[in-house]
C-alpha cells in the first residue's frame, strides 16, 4: 500500500501554548481515517501541518513521499474556515477550481450543490454558515484526487444536514483515495471510518482499527471514544 501521509516525530507549539507533540503515523491509500478528539486537542493544527499551512518545529511530514508543498495537487482540502470570499458565487468558484485543478469535475460539484439545495448564482454572503460549509464541500468533493482532508465538515450544521453531508461525502469520495476526516461529532460519522486516531492534548491517544474495536470491545466508536476520554488511559502511539 502506498503511504499518502507520513508523519515522523512532528511537534508544533504556539509559543507557550501546546499544538501537537511528537506525532508519528502513516495513512495509506484507500483508507478512511477519522481524526477524533475534543475541541482544542490539536486536530486542526495537525491538518494544517499536513497541508503546509503551518510549519513543524521539528519532525518530518511527507505527502505521497514528498514535501507537502510539492504534493498539493494530490489533496482536496476542506478547512474549518470559510476560505471563499463574501461576494463570490458558486459559479465563479467552480470556474476557479476548474482553472486550478484538472481533476475537478464541475458536473459532479454541481450535482452535490443541487443535493444541498444551494443556488449556483447566489453570492456567499447570502448563505448561512451551514450553507457556506456545504458550498465549500461541493468544491472539495467535486475533485477526484488521491487524498481528501476534511476538517470538521459538519461543524456548523444542523443534525439533518449532517446526514446529507455525510451521504454526499461517501457518494462522491473517489474509490481508492484516502480520506482524513476530523470531527468531534463522533456518533454521526463513525459509520464511515475504517481507522480512527484519537487525539488529546496534542498527542495521539489511540490508533485503532474500527472493525477490531467493534468486534473485540463490542461497542460503538462513540462509546469507545467516551470510555477512553473518561478514563484518559493514555497510551501514546505517536
Amino acid at each position: 500500500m502506498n503511504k499518502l501521509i507520513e508523519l515522523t516525530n512532528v511537534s508544533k507549539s504556539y509559543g507557550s501554548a501546546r499544538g501537537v507533540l511528537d506525532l508519528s503515523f502513516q495513512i495509506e491509500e484507500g483508507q478512511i481515517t477519522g481524526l477524533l478528539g475534543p475541541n482544542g486537542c490539536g486536530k486542526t493544527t495537525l491538518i494544517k501541518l499536513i497541508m503546509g499551512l503551518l510549519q513543524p518545529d521539528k519532525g518530518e511530514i511527507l505527502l505521497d513521499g514528498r514535501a507537502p508543498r510539492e504534493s498539493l495537487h494530490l489533496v482536496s482540502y476542506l478547512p474549518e474556515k470559510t476560505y471563499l470570499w463574501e461576494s463570490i458565487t458558486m459559479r465563479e468558484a467552480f470556474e476557479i477550481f476548474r482553472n486550478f485543478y484538472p481533476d475537478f469535475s464541475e458536473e459532479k460539484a454541481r450535482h452535490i450543490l443541487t443535493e444541498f439545495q444551494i443556488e449556483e448564482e447566489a453570492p456567499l454572503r447570502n448563505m448561512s454558515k451551514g450553507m457556506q460549509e456545504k458550498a465549500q464541500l461541493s468544491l472539495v468533493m467535486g475533485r477526484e484526487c488521491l487524498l481528501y482532508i476534511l476538517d470538521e465538515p459538519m461543524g456548523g450544521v444542523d443534525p439533518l444536514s449532517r446526514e446529507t453531508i455525510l451521504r454526499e461525502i461517501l457518494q462522491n469520495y473517489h474509490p481508492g483515495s484516502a480520506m482524513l476526516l476530523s470531527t468531534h461529532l463522533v456518533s454521526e460519522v463513525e459509520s464511515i471510518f475504517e481507522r480512527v486516531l484519537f487525539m488529546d492534548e496534542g498527542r495521539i491517544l489511540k490508533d485503532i482499527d474500527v472493525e477490531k474495536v467493534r468486534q473485540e470491545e463490542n461497542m460503538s466508536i462513540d462509546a469507545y471514544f467516551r470510555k477512553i476520554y473518561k478514563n484518559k488511559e493514555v497510551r501514546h502511539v505517536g
Partner: protein
Amino acid sequence: MLAKLIALDLRFYRKMLWKPLLICLMVLIGSIAAASNTSFPDKTFAGLGFVVGTLTILVAIGFIVFTMVAHYYRHFYSAQGYLTHTLPATPSQRLWAKLISGFFLHLISLFIIFFGLYLLTRASLGPFYSQLRATSIVQTVLDYLGWPAVFLIVGLMLFAYPSFFAAYSLSISLGLNKRLQRFGGGGIAIVIVGQYLFNMFINFVSSKIPLSLRIYLNPRWYKMIQLVTERPVDSVGGMMEGGVMIPASAYVDIGFVAFMFSFVFIVISFLLVHRELKRINLR
C-alpha cells in the same frame, strides 16, 4: 500556473474596484463639466470643479492602493489564505503573481492621474488652453527637457511600483511571521517603523558620503546622469555661476548609496517575503 494566479488576482481587483472607480469616474466627469463651465460670472464654480476633480483623482488612487495592500493581506494571511496556500502553485509563483497583477493597477493609477489631470486642466483653462497650444508651451517644455528626460521620468514612475510593493509586502509578511504574529497588527507596525528608521539611517549615511548621482534637468547640458564624487546637494544646484543664473545647467543630486540601496531593498524584500511565504504559519 503563474498566468492563472495573475488572472485570479485581477478577478479580485476587478470585483473590489469597479464600483468605487465607477463612482469616481462619474464625479470626475461632473467635475470636468463644472470646471469647464464659463457661463458663471465668476470662476468659483469652475474652481470648485477643479478642486473636487483633483480630490476625486486622489480618492481613486487611494482606493487602488488600498485594494492592492488589502488584497495582499487577505489573500495570504486571512481565511482566504487557506485557499491561496493550498492551490497547486509554488510560493514564488504566488509572489510573482501579486507583483505582476499589482503592476496593472499601478498602470491604471498612472493613467487616472495623468489623463484625469490633463482633462481637468484643459477644462479649467478654457479658451486659454487654445492660446497655450498656439504658443506651443508644451512643446517648449518638451524641447527643454528632451525625450531622454521624459523617459527618465516615466522610468522613475514605473520604478515607484516595485519599490512600493517591496515596502508593503515586506511589512505584511514579516509583520505576520512566526515571531511577530503574536502582536497582531502591531507586528506590521513594527516592521513599518523599522523600515522607516533604516531608510532614515541610509539617507543620513548617504548624505555624508561624497558619491552622488547627478541628474541634469536639461539633459543636453553635459550628460543627463553623471556619477560625481561630491556629497549630494540639499536642493537644486548649478543654477548660478558668477552671480548669473544659468537654468540650463541645473541639476539634482541623489546620494549614490541611498540610490543603490533602493534597488537592493527591492531584491532583499523579495527574497525575505518569498522565504516567509515558503514557511507560512496561518494561525
